[in-house]
């Protein structure tokens, strides 16, 4: 039990947890979002396979949250030297990294799902008015704004944590 308790006073633990939070939560959001659009898209594709390109574009839109989460995770790894393997972080720094990764993780999770739903209903536009595909794209981009803002804050925070 002693070893388990020391986990909470170990800065590395928090930093690694931060990487996990950013990548896992944002990735979950995107996976769910992209999945929803994919389901909607195959309905259209079964009718008209030529619309694959347009559907693919809409499906790619909710994928960005996952990338933002991955980026934050990667930057944490670069900044703390995790890639080299030799990490020694004080508890305060580790905890700060964990907290800094929360925005991109949580907002990525929620916005990914919601962006997926907006894009999925945009797939209907492809079915009926393929010339108007850019309008649902912009609607989906409005949802992504908040993922971008969260990503920005996470990034600025992590850049400014002194290792």
């Amino acid at each position: 039990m002693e070893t388990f308790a020391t986990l909470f006073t170990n800065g590395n633990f928090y930093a690694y947890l931060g990487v996990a939070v950013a990548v896992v939560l944002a990735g979950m959001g995107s996976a769910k979002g992209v999945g929803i659009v994919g389901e909607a898209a195959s309905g259209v594709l079964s009718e008209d396979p030529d619309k694959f390109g347009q559907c693919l574009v809409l499906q790619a839109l909710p994928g960005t949250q996952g990338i933002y989460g991955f980026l934050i995770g990667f930057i944490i790894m670069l900044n703390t030297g995790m890639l080299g393997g030799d990490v020694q972080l004080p508890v305060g720094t580790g905890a700060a990294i964990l907290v800094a990764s929360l925005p991109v993780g949580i907002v990525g999770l929620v916005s990914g799902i919601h962006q997926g739903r907006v894009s999925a209903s945009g797939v209907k536009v492809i079915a009926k008015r393929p010339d108007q595909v850019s309008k649902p794209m912009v609607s989906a981009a409005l949802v992504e704004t908040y993922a971008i803002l969260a990503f920005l804050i996470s990034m600025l925070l992590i850049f400014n944590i002194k290792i």
Partner: protein
Amino acid sequence: MIERMEKICIYSVKDQTDDVVEDILKCGVIQPIHAQSVVPDEIKHVLEECEISDISKEEELINRIENGITVLKKFSAEKNLFKKRPFITYKELTEEKVISQSIEICDKIEKAEERISKLRRDLAEMIFREKSLVPWASFDIPAEKCRTESAETYFCVLQGQKTSENIEEILSDKGVPVYLETVHIDEETHYVALLFLKKYNKAVGEALNRLGAKKFDIEGMKGTFAENIEICRSNIKSMNSDLNRGEKEIYDISRGKKILEKASDSLKIKIQYMSGRENFLSTEKVNIITGWIPVSEKENVSKKLAEYDCFCQYEAPDSCEEYPVLMKNNKLVKPFGTITEMYSLPKSRSIDTNWAIGLFFFIFFGMMLSDAGYGIILILGGLLGAKLLDIGDEAREFFKMIGICGFSTVLWGAVYGSWFGDAVPTITETFFNRRIEIPYLIDPLSQPMTVLILACILGVIHLFTGMGIKAYIMIKRGDRWGALFDVGFWYMLLLGLPMLLMTGPWKTAGYILSVTGAVGLVLTQGRHKSKTAGKIISGIMSLYNITGYFSDVLSYSRILALGLATGVVASVVNIMGSMAGNGIIGVILFIIVFTAGHVLNLAINALGAYVHSARLQYVEFFGKYYEGGGKKFDPLRIKTKYVRITEEKK
């Protein structure tokens, strides 16, 4: 610039109407409107609506031809992305013989198709028969000898665990003498021949039913099974060669595909101009054709129509009447018209702001993608695509736009020092042991605040331009004071507030500006309300909009975020590629990871840059001034799918 439109009214003699309409179609600058709305009321009662022409025959023929084209497409393997549609003159396209030839070809195709599909059916049947005969091949008694006056042979198929012994068991219980021979066994199926006396017919039938055996019918068969299989096989062979011959026949016709395509386009033109007639009015001897025409084309059309005995009259629209919108811009701005069009065309009495949309889209797209290597790819892809691909006008403009935005991407990539991310330092360090750094002006990774401030400043300029356009529209419409109240005061307030953060005389100036602006807004923003209380409340509430401007400006921070995302993913790709060191395997891995990674990154981030640059225009910029809802100018013109029309050769 939005083209001015006028109404044209052509009175043509009935005999010549067809030629006149054909010429209008060729000019492609008149959008027909219903004549009822143009003709003065006094003469309306003498006019009749032109009878709607029957186009069902043409449509049926088009369907046949399109079917023919789909059939032939299977046989001509040519599928070339860079293939351009052939040029043809209008006269060649609309020749009578194109249609008559195409009908002949269609007949041939349909006949051949019918024959082939019958052959296919027969072939399938024959193959099935052959397959069902094969298990019995070793039973060498001819079918006609299997039956005598008093004896009968059944051929039955037993499935599951059942064998000939089961039959024997059941029948011997009933005392029926029977001779059984198992001809063939495969997996779980037994093929059994069974000889018995005709008088036991019923008992045998019941026994077989109980075991679920299927009887193989040899009614009408002659000779042994082996002989029959031989016959089937030779039939299949000859059918296959018939099928090949039939397909060859269609292949021979496939050279006629060009004629079918021509005929299809020619019929479509015919339908277009026949259905254009719905809008005409007519008297006994005259047709009245009305439509919108851009003022700049008036002279051209008048000259063309002078060949006929017709009278042509132009009328400017009323000052409040909306007309269809056609935007005319120079080569550099025109491609960005697609962005405006995607949102909504401006009202005909508003102004065309494609230059501003183009300029800011160009800057924002470049900052968001911000990689010189990707920019070069976009320039090549966009401009070459527009030149080499035959994709229609709208798609071509889009490609051009992407190409133009590529230049901005190269520019910003160079500012950030990003050429395929940090490919140059990584490659030189991994493979040549000497790190070569690329010079840069701003490094977004170490100076994110610089880029953020830059993005917000550009945002402010963008927003102020939008407000300026609003003021311009108001002044143009004679509302000078409105422009000062709604735009001028906001300029003062929004400029004054950040100046408060500075020191010395700047601070004083900022103080004066912002207070003037705020007081001005409070006094004027309620001017449309009728009651005094309403005026005061609206005036004060208008200051609340300041949070709107604040969030608008912050929205431009996405420029930094997307720029960082491109750069960092690109670097990640390079790092992953160089992980295997500088051996042969390292080089191979690097090439694979580098290509796949950067293609993916370019695709996703170009999409992001496009969508978010567009969003900044639609939400932040258009929100300040834009008056959308114009109808697109859609003239009666030749629309073809397979060929392109050129000028007549003289």
